[in-house]
């Protein structure tokens, strides 16, 4: 019996993307600038199909860009006039998002739709289709499996693709995914053998993730070490207080808001900000996190203690970017695994 899933040969995936390009702005993993990022597809190059890792710039940048105009304004005799920037009406299709990064978007959704809605993030999110592609390799920094995420499975995407050799198995996860499949040409029905291959591929991917984070009682262990200054000071010592780990974290959402002005015209921007920077919390009279260990502690606690308290989910997906891209190899898994059991 045929499964309800579809498949497509890797050779024809370019055609499929071309078809989707009629309807969407298609983004794919690109290393053209020397930095892997989700970039607008050029309509030709499909080399990213053979590159099964996550990007340096996380896909969150497609929804919460490094900088974004919030509105612009002009001043004339009648006073100020505030206008929203023109919106890109094209729907985004993100092809090749990894399960860790897709989960991260689901986490960001919580923050940006909690209490007040964030129109900039949510309008882009509502207008996007996520096509996940399962990993077949893992970096030695990856630890998604410790956080209950499989490198080749996701429920946070619309379509999920699994590498089964020369083909991808395509699973529709959401209604939007099902509709997209039903109007896409060139897809074949998957058979039982394909499903078996997909299962093996997923299992193999799972085994490739070797880094382990000890999540047993992690909230309690953290709470017990909240005031363990010696520990935090020691592990914070080598941190440079740069923004790499937070800017490139797929679940970090902190931002700054700043105005720009040229003559009577100006605009307000938001841009990524980081709890690693001392100025982040600086007030005229005092700064609650002027010491480095407090900032390092904040990052760890926000992800593993505070965010779970608010939203019942860990704000980390084990993508490993913060470990891999840190200029001094500051490793959050070590920081957590080495938490003293008794203080």
């Amino acid at each position, binding site marked *: 019996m045929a499964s309800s899933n579809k498949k497509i040969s890797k050779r024809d995936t370019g055609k499929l993307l071309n078809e989707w390009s009629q309807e969407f702005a298609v983004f794919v993993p690109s290393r053209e600038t020397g930095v892997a990022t989700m970039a607008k597809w050029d309509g030709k190059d499909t080399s990213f199909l053979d590159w099964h890792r996550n990007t340096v710039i996380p896909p969150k940048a497609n929804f919460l860009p490094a900088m974004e105009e919030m509105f612009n304004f002009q*001043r004339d005799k009648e006073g100020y006039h505030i206008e929203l920037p023109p919106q890109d009406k094209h729907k985004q299709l993100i092809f090749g998002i990894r399960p860790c990064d897709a989960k991260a978007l689901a986490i960001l959704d919580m923050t940006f739709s909690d209490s007040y809605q964030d129109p900039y993030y949510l309008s882009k999110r509502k207008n996007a289709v996520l096509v996940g592609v399962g990993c077949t390799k893992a970096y030695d920094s990856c630890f998604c499996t410790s956080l209950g995420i499989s490198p080749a499975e996701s429920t946070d995407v619309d379509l999920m693709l699994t590498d089964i050799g020369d083909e991808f198995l395509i699973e529709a996860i959401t209604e939007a995914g099902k509709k997209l499949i039903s109007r896409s040409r060139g897809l074949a029905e998957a058979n039982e053998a394909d499903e078996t291959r997909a299962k093996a591929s997923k299992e193999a991917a799972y085994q490739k993730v070797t880094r382990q984070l000890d999540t047993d009682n992690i909230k309690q262990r953290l709470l017990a070490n909240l*005031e363990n200054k010696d520990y935090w000071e020691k592990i914070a010592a080598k941190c440079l207080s740069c923004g790499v780990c937070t800017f490139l974290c797929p679940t970090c959402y902190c931002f700054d808001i700043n105005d720009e002005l040229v003559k009577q015209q100006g605009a307000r921007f938001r841009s990524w900000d980081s709890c690693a920077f001392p100025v982040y919390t600086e007030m005229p009279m005092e700064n609650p996190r002027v010491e480095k260990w407090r900032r390092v502690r904040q990052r760890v606690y926000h992800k593993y203690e505070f965010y779970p308290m608010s939203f019942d989910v860990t704000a980390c997906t084990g993508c490993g970017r913060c470990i891999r891209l840190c200029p001094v190899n500051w490793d959050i898994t070590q920081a957590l695994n080495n938490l003293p059991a008794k203080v």
Partner: protein
Amino acid sequence: MTITDISHRRKFLAQGNVYLPHIVIIEKIIDETPGVRTFHFNFKDEKLREEFSFESGQFGEYSVLGIGEAPFCISSSPTRRDHLEFALQRVGKVTNALHRLGVGAEIGFRGPYGNGVPLDLLQGKNLVFVGGGIGLAPLRSLIWNVIDNRDKYENIDIIYGARSPSDLCFKYDLDAWNKDKAVNMVTTVDKGDENWTGKVGFVPQVLEQAAPSAQNAVAIVCGPPIMIRFTFPVLEKLGFTPEQMITTLEKRMKCGIGKCGRCNIGNLYVCRDGPVFSYAQIKGFISKEY
């Protein structure tokens, strides 16, 4: 009824694209102290002028367009709605720019944000207001609110201090409350001058001397962090439980709506879950992080 968690009381009154400021016009400027000014303002849009509502303790984000945005509480009372007020000290880029503005200038305003003071829980109670410096701004909104509904509350004690006589804010209010027989008002300064005949001493000490009863009372504390830190132990000594102490906190903020991340105390965002907290809510974090 006790006041433990007042964060869930937060109201989301602002609507639409919450990041877009409304244009408001400065109607009056009062020099409070050499570095502090009060601005009276009103919405440019007639409809908003009518419809805008807020609660004591809530704050807004005020912007000088092209320079930037900063949060300040609404210092006027919702019971006196012909205009709105906020007060600020010159300390940085935005506050400097605001201080350069004159009457008639247009600024951006968005809000109201935050939870406000749980007035219903204060009804029928003795209220002890403890304020320091410009920390009187949020208290003042509440104090006028309470005075305008005087019969709903029991005793009102106000203990207010500043560094020096010239640093006392809202002197016209202090005069009015001093004259009001239904209010017990104590004003103090850290250091007097030749004309000062009132009390001299830090707010926590003066509070201890005044020793308001904790019986059926709620203390509302607002001032510089150092004052807040030293006031809680005094209140505890006087018999106040953490559930009987309310404070409004100040942190660096940008978005005002719980997104941009920087104003957290533990898992609470001061902008989203506060700025009004019961001491019971924050005492676990306050000693270290605040």
